[in-house]
C-alpha cells in the first residue's frame, strides 16, 4: 500500500510539473496574473507530493518491506536504523528520488519566498524548474522506479554495500545534491531572463543568494565526501581525481566563478552576458555530473549503477537541456544590453581574471575526465588519466589563481591601483616569504616546491587578514575605533575574507599531508611495537566481536610518545555475511591538526596481522579550509543586503520605532 501510494504521489508530481511547465508561460505571454500564479501553487504542491513519495520510500526501508525490490536489494532487517534510512539514497533509484525531492524543495522555496520577484520572472523561473523536474520524474518513472514490487517476496534483504554503511552516507549525498541541484535555480533564472530578454542588477541580486546557498552545500558536500573516502577506504587518500569526484568539482569551480561574476553584475551592472552563460554552464556541469555518476559510463568506486538504458535517457536529458539553453543563449544574448565600463586593472578586472582561471581550470578537469572516455569510444583503447595529469595541468593554473586572490578584494572598483595594493600587501608577502625560508631551513633543503606552496598558502591567509585590517583601520586608528569599524563592516566582506583564508588553509593542509606523510606497513604480532613519526604504537592484541549485521576483528593499539601514554586505537576489519564482503574500519587519533591513522590488512597463517600506519601532519586543515569557506558563505548569506527579500522601505521605517 505504501509503495503504491509513493508511486502514485510521484505520478501526481509529474502531472503537476507538466502543468507548471506550460500554464505560467502562457500566462506570462497573455499577461494574466492568475495563470502566472498557478506556478506558485503547483510548485508547493509538487514539493508536497514528492516529499510524500520520498517519505514513503523511507518508510518502506525502515519497516523492511522486502516485497519492494529496492528495499530487498539494499536493505537487511538487522541493519541499524540509521543505515536503513541512509540506505534509501545509497542506491540508484533512491538517490534519483532524493535528487528530484531536492529539486522540488528549491522550487518550493522560490515559490514561497519569491514574493518580491516580478510576477512574470517568477512564473518563468518556476516553469523552467518544472521542465527540469518533468524530465527527471519521467526518468525515474520509466527507468528507475524505486517502488517496484517483487512477485514472490523474499524473507530477508541483500543488505547495503558495507562500504556505504557509514555515517558519511547520511551526510555526503544530500549535501552534494543540495549543491548540484541548487544550481538549477540560477539556471532557471538565467533561462527566464533570456526568455524575457531583460536583465539588470536586480536580477543578480535575486540570483546571488540562491547560488551562494548551493555553493555552500556543494563546498561542504565535497569536503565531507573527501573526508569519508579518507577514513573509510582504508588507505588514507583524500582525493583521487576519480571521474566521480571530478563530476562534483567541476560544478564547484564553475559555481565559484558564477558567484564572483554575479558580484560584478550586482555592483557594477557589467558582465551580464557572461554571468548568464556561467549560470547555464554551472548547471549543465551538474547535469553532466549526474550523467557520469548515474549512467555508470565510467569505472569508479562511486558508480554503483550500471544500466545502459538509463545512461541513454540521462544523455537525452543532458543534450536537451544543454543544447536548448545554449541555443536560446546564442539567439538572445546579443540583444542584452551591456553596461558598466571598467579598466583592466580594477576589482572588475580581477574578478574577470578569477573567472578566466576558474573556468579554464574547470575545462582542464572536464578534459581529463572525458578524454579517456572519448578515446575509448573513438579509438577503442583504454587509458587512465590520474593525479600526475592534474598535478601538471590543474595545479599550476590554481596556483596562479591563488597568487591573484589577495589582490582582488583590495583593488578599487572601476579603476584600481595595482602598485598601491602591492604596497599594502607587502606585509602579507613578507610573511609568506618568511614562512618559505623557515620551512625550507627546517626540512634542510628538501624540495623547494613544498615550502613555496606553504608560503603561498600563508600569503593568501595573510592577504585576507590584511584586507580586513585595511578596512577596519587596524594599526592605523585607535583600537576602539577599529573595533567599531569591524562591527560596521558588511558581513559579506567578512564572509569573503574568511572564504579566501579558508582556501589558503586548505592549501597548507594539502601540501603538508602530501609532502611529509609518513607511512609504515608491516605484519605485526601482539606486543610488537611500530614507530612512526616519533610515536610508539604497541599492538596489545586481537579480539573478535559480533556487530548487528557483521562480525569484526578488532586490533587494539596503545599509542605513546616518549614516556607519555596517549591513547588506545582500535582499528577493525568487518565481514558482512549477507554480501560476503568485508570493510576496513580505520582508527584515527587526532593530535592538533595532525592525525595518526591505522588500518588493518589480512591475518597471516602464524597469527600476525598486516597493518598500515600513517602519520598525516596537518591533514585536518584540508577539511577545515572548506568548512571555513562555507562559514564565510553563510556569513555573506546573512548579510542584510543579500537577503532574498531585500529590505523594503516599509521595513526600514519600522526599524526606527523605539523597541519595547
Amino acid at each position: 500500500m505504501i509503495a503504491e501510494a509513493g508511486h502514485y504521489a510521484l505520478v501526481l508530481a509529474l502531472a503537476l510539473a507538466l502543468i507548471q511547465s506550460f500554464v505560467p508561460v502562457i500566462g506570462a505571454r497573455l499577461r494574466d496574473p492568475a495563470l502566472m500564479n498557478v506556478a506558485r501553487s503547483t510548485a508547493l504542491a509538487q514539493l508536497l507530493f514528492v516529499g510524500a513519495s520520498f517519505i514513503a520510500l523511507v518508510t518502506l526501508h525502515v519497516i523492511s518491506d522486502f516485497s519492494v525490490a529496492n528495499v530487498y536489494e539494499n536493505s537487511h532487517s538487522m541493519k541499524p536504523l540509521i543505515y536503513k534510512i541512509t540506505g534509501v539514497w545509497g542506491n540508484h533509484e533512491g538517490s534519483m528520488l532524493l535528487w528530484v525531492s531536492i529539486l522540488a524543495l528549491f522550487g518550493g522555496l522560490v515559490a514561497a519566498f519569491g514574493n518580491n520577484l516580478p510576477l512574470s520572472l517568477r512564473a518563468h523561473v518556476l516553469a523552467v524548474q518544472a521542465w527540469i523536474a518533468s524530465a527527471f520524474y519521467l526518468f525515474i518513472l520509466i527507468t528507475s522506479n524505486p517502488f517496484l514490487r517483487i512477485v514472490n517476496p523474499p524473507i530477508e534483504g541483500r543488505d547495503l554495500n558495507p562500504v556505504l554503511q557509514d555515517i558519511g552516507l547520511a551526510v555526503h549525498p544530500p549535501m552534494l545534491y543540495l549543491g548540484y541541484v541548487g544550481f538549477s535555480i540560477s539556471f532557471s533564472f538565467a533561462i527566464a531572463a533570456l526568455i524575457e530578454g531583460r536583465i539588470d542588477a536586480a536580477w543578480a541580486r535575486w540570483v546571488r543568494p540562491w547560488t551562494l546557498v548551493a555553493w555552500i552545500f556543494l563546498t561542504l558536500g565535497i569536503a565531507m565526501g573527501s573526508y569519508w573516502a579518507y577514513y573509510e577506504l582504508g588507505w588514507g587518500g583524500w582525493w583521487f581525481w576519480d571521474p566521480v569526484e571530478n563530476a562534483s568539482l567541476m560544478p564547484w569551480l564553475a559555481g565559484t566563478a558564477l558567484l564572483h561574476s554575479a558580484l560584478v553584475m550586482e555592483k557594477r551592472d557589467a558582465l551580464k552576458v557572461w554571468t548568464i552563460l556561467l549560470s547555464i554552464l554551472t548547471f549543465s556541469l551538474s547535469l553532466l555530473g549526474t550523467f557520469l555518476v548515474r549512467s555508470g559510463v565510467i569505472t569508479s568506486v562511486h558508480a554503483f549503477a550500471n544500466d545502459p538504458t538509463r545512461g541513454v535517457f540521462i544523455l537525452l536529458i543532458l543534450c536537451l537541456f544543454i543544447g536548448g539553453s545554449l541555443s536560446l543563449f546564442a539567439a538572445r544574448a546579443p540583444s542584452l544590453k551591456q553596461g558598466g565600463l571598467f579598466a583592466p586593472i580594477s576589482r572588475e578586472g580581477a574578478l574577470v581574471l578569477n573567472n578566466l582561471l576558474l573556468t579554464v581550470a574547470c575545462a582542464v578537469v572536464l578534459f581529463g575526465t572525458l578524454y579517456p572516455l572519448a578515446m575509448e569510444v573513438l579509438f577503442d583503447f583504454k587509458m587512465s588519466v590520474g593525479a600526475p595529469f592534474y598535478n601538471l595541468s590543474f595545479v599550476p593554473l590554481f596556483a596562479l589563481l591563488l597568487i591573484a586572490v589577495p589582490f582582488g578584494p583590495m583593488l578599487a572598483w572601476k579603476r584600481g591601483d595595482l602598485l598601491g595594493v602591492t604596497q599594502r600587501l607587502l606585509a602579507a608577502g613578507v610573511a609568506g616569504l618568511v614562512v618559505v625560508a623557515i620551512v625550507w631551513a627546517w626540512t634542510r633543503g628538501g624540495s623547494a616546491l613544498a615550502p613555496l606552496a606553504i608560503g603561498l598558502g600563508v600569503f593568501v591567509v595573510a592577504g585576507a587578514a590584511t584586507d580586513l585590517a585595511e578596512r577596519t583601520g587596524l594599526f592605523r586608528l585607535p583600537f576602539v575605533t577599529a573595533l567599531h569599524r569591524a562591527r560596521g563592516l558588511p558581513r559579506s566582506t567578512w564572509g569573503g575574507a574568511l572564504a579566501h583564508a579558508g582556501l589558503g588553509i586548505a592549501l597548507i593542509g594539502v601540501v603538508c599531508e602530501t609532502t611529509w606523510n609518513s607511512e609504515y606497513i608491516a605484519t605485526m604480532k601482539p606486543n610488537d611495537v611500530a614507530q612512526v613519526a616519533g610515536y610508539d604504537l604497541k599492538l596489545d592484541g586481537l579480539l573478535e566481536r559480533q556487530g548487528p549485521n557483521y562480525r569484526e576483528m578488532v586490533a587494539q593499539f596503545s599509542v605513546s610518545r616518549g614516556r607519555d601514554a596517549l591513547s588506545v586505537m582500535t582499528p577493525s576489519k568487518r565481514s558482512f555475511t549477507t554480501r560476503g564482503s568485508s570493510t576496513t574500519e580505520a582508527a584515527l587519533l587526532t593530535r592538533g591538526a595532525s592525525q595518526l591513522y591505522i588500518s588493518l590488512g589480512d591475518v597471516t597463517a602464524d597469527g600476525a596481522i598486516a597493518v598500515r600506519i600513517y602519520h598525516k601532519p596537518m591533514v585536518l586543515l584540508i577539511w577545515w579550509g572548506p568548512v571555513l569557506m562555507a562559514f564565510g558563505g553563510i556569513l555573506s548569506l546573512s548579510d542584510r543586503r543579500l537577503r532574498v527579500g531585500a529590505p523594503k522601505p516599509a521595513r526600514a521605517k519600522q526599524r526606527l520605532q523605539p523597541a519595547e
Partner: protein
Amino acid sequence: MTRKQRRMTIIGGSLAVLALAAALVLNALRDSIVFFSTPTMVAEKHVQPGKRFRLGGLVQPGSLQRGDNLAVTFEVADGGAKLPVAYKGILPDLFREGQGVVAEGALDANGVFKADTVLAKHDETYMPKDVADALKKQGHWKDDYGAKASNGITPAATTAQGNSQGAVR
C-alpha cells in the same frame, strides 16, 4: 583607454590564459597517461620493461602466494594468457582469487609485472568495468558473472575455456 582597447585587453588576456592551459594540458598528456592492457595484449605487443601501464584481468585461482614482509605474488589471467605479478603491501579488501583486479606498474627484465598499486575497484557486480569489457571482447565473458557475483557467490575458475559453469560455492 577606449572601449575597444579595453575589450582587446580582456580578449588578449583570455587568449593568453587559454594558451597557457593548452600548453600545460599537452605537456601533461605526454608524460602522465597510463594505458590499460590485459595479459593477452601484453604478450602480443611485447611491452617494453619499465613502461608503466595498467594490467587488468582475473586473479588466477591458486596462484596467490604470500612471502615475507607483505610481499605477495599472484597471476593475472584473461583466458588467453597469464602474467605473474609481484606486489608488496596490503591487498585491498575486495581482492579475491578468481575475481577481477587492476594493477598499475611496469614489467621488469624477467617479465614479471611489478605492481605498485593494486586496485580491486569495482561495483557491486564484483567486476571492474575495464576487465569485464576486455573479457567480453575476447569471448570469455559469461553472462552469469554479474548475476552470480551479485548474489554473493564467488565465481572461481572463471577463465578456464570450455568450462560452462565456473561458479562454485
